[in-house]
């Protein structure tokens, strides 16, 4: 019986799935870049000897050198240090946005797809929100909420929730008609359990793919909001606030905007590449083998 008890949900196919995912070089490159960024963000205090907010006016706008790899900004702060610390903020904002948007969007999508009576009210609101351009809606929400780190996350989560809701609803509409859902009902399984154990589990792959893309969009959108001055307060070093502050010096000191800009590009691009790979792997119509 001990062996039977240990027969838990293990995924023997995980190694195989990862190998299949990384068979494409682009996906592997994206994943590596992502891991490097995350590690840098995690170990930011150990990545450089400088204080990200120590002012050294004499050292201002120095070009990249052995001492300051990415140069210094208008207050003499080390840009490499600030990019690494900025990774913490930018990635955290992106991750929290994805988390909130995914949870909220999944709940809304499941309800809209499963309960016919909730479908119209939920989806019309979702449609209305999706009719606005992302960044415009985010700016409007920020104007209402006021500039703060948490409000950026909240505004972006509100902007991206409808996307998840749409996808989850579409998958739910398909899955709920499958026979195993009826079979579960024939076993006396409750509605909540059918929703979360049977339907949600079968809609996870599109959610995962979409969440990866939203992560990328959220990083871009945060940078955009901060650049426009309606995002994160300027004293917090995110990649967006750094580009925003550096733009007026860009003609004399390109490195001030180049490196945080590059960080944004790398983060967004690598997430997109991983997302593409996940989609190709999880969508059976695009899958070449198996």
């Amino acid at each position, binding site marked *: 019986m001990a062996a*039977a*008890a240990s027969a838990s949900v293990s995924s023997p196919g995980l190694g195989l799935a990862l190998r299949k995912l990384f068979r494409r070089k682009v996906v592997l490159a994206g994943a590596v870049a992502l891991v490097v960024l995350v590690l840098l963000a995690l170990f930011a205090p150990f990545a450089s000897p400088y204080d990200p907010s120590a002012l050294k006016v004499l050292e201002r706008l120095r070009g990249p050198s052995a001492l300051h790899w990415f140069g210094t900004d208008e207050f003499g702060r080390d840009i490499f240090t600030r990019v690494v610390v900025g990774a913490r903020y930018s990635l955290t904002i992106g991750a929290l946005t994805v988390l909130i948007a995914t949870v909220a969007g999944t709940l809304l999508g499941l309800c809209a797809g499963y309960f016919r009576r909730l479908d119209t009210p939920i989806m019309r609101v979702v449609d209305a929100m999706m009719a606005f351009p992302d960044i415009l809606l985010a700016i409007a929400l920020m104007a209402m909420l006021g500039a703060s780190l948490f409000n950026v996350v909240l505004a972006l989560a509100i902007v991206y929730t409808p996307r998840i809701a749409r996808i989850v609803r579409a998958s739910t509409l398909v899955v709920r008609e499958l026979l*195993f859902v009826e*079979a579960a009902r*024939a076993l*006396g399984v409750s509605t909540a359990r059918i929703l979360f154990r049977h339907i949600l589990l*079968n809609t996870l792959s599109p959610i995962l793919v979409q969440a990866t893309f939203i992560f990328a969009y959220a990083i871009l959108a945060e940078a955009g909001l901060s650049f426009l001055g309606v995002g994160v307060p300027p004293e917090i070093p995110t990649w967006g606030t750094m580009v925003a502050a550096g733009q007026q010096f860009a003609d004399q000191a390109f490195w001030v905007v180049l490196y945080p800009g590059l960080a944004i590009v790398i983060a967004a691009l690598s997430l997109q590449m991983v997302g593409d790979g996940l989609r190709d792997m999880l969508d059976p119509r695009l899958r070449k083998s198996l």
Partner: protein
Amino acid sequence: MTVSTLQKTVARPAPQAEAATALLDVRGLRTEFRTDGGVVTPLLGVDFSVAPGETLALVGESGSGKSVTSLSIMGLLARPAGRIAAGSALFRTRDGASVDLARADDATLRRLRGRELAMIFQEPMTSLNPVLPVGEQIADAVRLHLGLDRQAALAHALRMLELVEIPAARQRLREYPHQMSGGMRQRVMIALALSCEPRLLIADEPTTALDVTIQAQILVLMRKLQHELGMGILFITHNLGVVAETAQRVAVMYAGRIVETGTVREVFKAPKHPYTRGLMECLPANAHRDERGQPVRLKAIPGQVAAPGRQPPGCAFAPRCAFAEPRCESAVPALAAVAPDHQSRCLRWSAL
């Protein structure tokens, strides 16, 4: 009667139609669906009963209402379109209480489903959740109804897989449905349905999607399990060969009504409804040879079941019936007693 058939007759439980002892007693069950084209009524009043330990086969062609009957009993009609309009389905639970499944509320039905009533579906390929290991799926049901903890439930699931004779059950427990063949999956479905030892099993064409050798194995298995667990089975099929294999009694359905019912032996030996007779003549085994010994083309019953809502006022089978008389078309015939446990809904049964 030979000695062996005599023994069989004695060994089988005497068919009991009385409501007092029946496990499931369905009376006048009428189910409606609201559609854009108005209300259709696929079940026009169905009566039958299943005794404990007995197998009742429900036979009929596509569209006769077999599956709607099973869904009505299970309370799984697609709502709000489908509803039980009239009739009762009295079910005797294991603690002796009698529940009318036609009127029970959702919570009651949910408690009974899986524990007291279980169902096996026709399509083993899609009746299991593709993203959960089969052991988990069985354990889920067990935890839900028997209140076992996770480990005990998984151990129970293993016993169930062994009971349905799945080789290497311990390994199979951890496998996903896509790693199994159709026959294996149907065994898992049976294990799932029987995991809480239901009193009544509704098997909706459980072998139709399987190939013939596997069909026979599954039927033998179901008979064995019925013997061990003593449950009643409502076996829905359109395969008369399967009926002869598995059931003690048979109810033939046509256009939402039961047109003939009785012991399998009697109905098969002397069908007293032209429709049952037609079904029997469709069997290749009963194909005749002409005077020169050449095989005659298989007979088919001409026409189709009338769509619900467009049925004639009289006997629904009359338009396709070779024995029909003008009086057949005036009113729906009542069930006539042909023998003590054999009834036919035909005015001319004595002429057959």
